[in-house]
């Protein structure tokens, strides 16, 4: 039993899995170096990320699962749920030991895996819904900020590319501090130091006008006789209001 430490990347986690199998050991825990500083562990076994090994692990998983496994595991990883790393490890171990068990929802790791998959699926769906673009003044560019509870950016770009093929846009994850920029050709991941971010000035009068129209619309379609705050909050939890044009106080 050992604690394995990796760099926080998906490839890093896959490398840990490779090493653990190599050592024929079951990790006690798998943690990302970000948390290592928290001081708990001088004795952790640090694994250097190796893309080739990571690739081998993925192929091994897909070979056993009719190509369903690698995507599921990627989703689990991005879900950032507590214990995701260890659940991924055990799921892979189960796949290696027992073959394709992904349709066996009675298996505890499979059940957990789909719970995590569902969790991030819900967050992806929420972000498809809750992204609110603002048009940047004097530029042909739309900008949105989100605060998702899972790391969804790598999964949502395609949806917006299909929808907004003819406009440039940026979606910025304020929790994880990075974004996607679509330049009419492709999506690019951008970091806080990207020069483009400095050009995003205050919105225009015209932008304010459309935002106000949307707020007015939102308020007009409410039916007072049917007020149902519980349902409203279940669908639109308060933690998302900050970036929702129709909900934040203006």
């Amino acid at each position, binding site marked *: 039993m050992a604690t394995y430490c990796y760099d926080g990347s998906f490839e890093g986690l896959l490398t840990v899995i490779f090493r653990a199998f190599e050592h024929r050991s079951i990790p006690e825990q798998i943690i990302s170096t970000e948390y290592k500083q928290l001081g708990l562990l001088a004795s952790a076994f640090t694994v250097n990320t190796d893309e080739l090994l990571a690739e081998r692990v993925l192929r091994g998983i897909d070979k056993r699962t009719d190509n369903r496994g690698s995507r599921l595991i990627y989703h689990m990883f991005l879900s950032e749920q507590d214990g995701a790393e260890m659940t991924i490890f055990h799921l892979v171990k189960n796949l290696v030991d027992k073959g394709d068990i992904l*349709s066996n*929802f009675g298996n505890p790791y499979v059940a957990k895996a789909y719970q995590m998959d569902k969790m991030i699926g819900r967050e992806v769906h929420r972000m498809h819904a*809750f992204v609110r673009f603002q048009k940047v003044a004097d530029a042909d560019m739309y900008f949105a900020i989100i605060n998702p509870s899972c790391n969804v950016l790598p999964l949502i770009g395609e949806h917006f590319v299909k929808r*907004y*093929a003819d406009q440039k846009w940026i979606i910025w994850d304020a929790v994880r501090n990075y974004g996607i920029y679509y330049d009419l050709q492709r999506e690019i991941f951008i970091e806080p130091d990207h020069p483009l971010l400095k050009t995003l000035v205050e919105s225009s009068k015209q932008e304010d006008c*459309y935002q106000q129209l949307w707020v007015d619309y939102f308020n007009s379609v*409410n*039916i007072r006789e*049917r007020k149902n705050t519980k349902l409203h909050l279940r669908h639109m939890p308060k933690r998302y209001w900050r970036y929702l044009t129709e909900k934040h106080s203006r």
Partner: protein
Amino acid sequence: MSKIFEKLKVLADAAKYDASCASSGSKRFNQNKGLGNAEGMGICHSYTEDGRCVSLLKILFTNHCIYDCAYCVSRRSNDVRRAAFTVEEVVDLTINFYRRNYIEGLFLSSGIFKNPDYTMERLVRVAKQLRLNHNFHGYIHLKAIPGASPELLKEAGLYADRLSVNIELPSETSLQKVAPEKQYRDILGPMNYLKEEKEERSDHRPQRSKTQLFLPAGQSTQMIVGASPESDYQVLRLADSLYQRQKLKRVYYSGYIPIATDNRVPALKAPPLIRENRVYQADWLMRFYQFSVDEIVNEATPNLDLDIDPKLSYALRNRHLFPVDINQADYEMILRIPGVGVKSAQKIVSSRIYQKLNIDHLQRIGVVMKRARYFIKCPGLYNANSDISSKDLRSLILSGEQQNSLQLALFS
């Protein structure tokens, strides 16, 4: 510009009583780097404080109307502010809301001004401009105005993803009473015409040609519940026949909201929201759980039980079919167990190949055990209540749920 604010308020307010909000089921996808994409699942972008989904910009073109339907705020005899958009205004709002990811598209309905064709022609113009001048591939739902000519409806079908004609009242007699200018003929006529047109096109169209979409998301309608004396059996039988014969994709039910001070409709204190919810559950059973209307309601039990959902109600009336053996029963029967949804049923069937399922497995799969336990047989489950009468079982389940909500209230 200030005028547009005023118009939007009036014409959104007047459109909000239409229950339809769906934006899924179309096959329209982005082409030539245009704007928008309407393939696949629709998205609810927001939720109003009444908890309803906001998916489309749902507005009336105008609330001027020459008709006088008793249940409707826009009726001729009602004293309300009137307004009308121009085609350009609707197009501009749609595009700008869409670009900001507020909406999936447009749901445009209208009061009838001048005559049905004059009105329908305006609606078609909006859709046509969006598609042709703005290369817009988002979702468009148009109201088919009762009495509009087939040519216009056909043109509408070329640009819209969905058309709907609301049947509104669950019987012709009731409709006549509250909407004297309307007849079932004017409502079913367009539905049948559009159904035939769509079928003909899909027969003759070369396989997979995407250029000539015709109403890819089909037709829907709305029925008002509680404004007239029909039973749930009548409501659901009509819905069933609309699904079968007119091939509708969706029937929406709208608990009558006492908006109209008009003595042709009842003066309810509050909209019958529980009944509306039960009717939706019943509709759900017909569409996804392979129930027939008569299994849900019939001559003997013409109305849904308001205290319990129709699936539980069915199980209590048919105790001889239960308990269902989780490890043996057909998928169809698993689907009928209260507390088991479509997803859980599929998981049960796919997981029982690997091992005999016991109570722990079922919990992991997501079965609602406090509900299902009275209706299933599986290892690890001891059912002390198997010979209790349906009446007692009903109160047992109801009291259990009340107790639960009491506990939740105490501890939250």
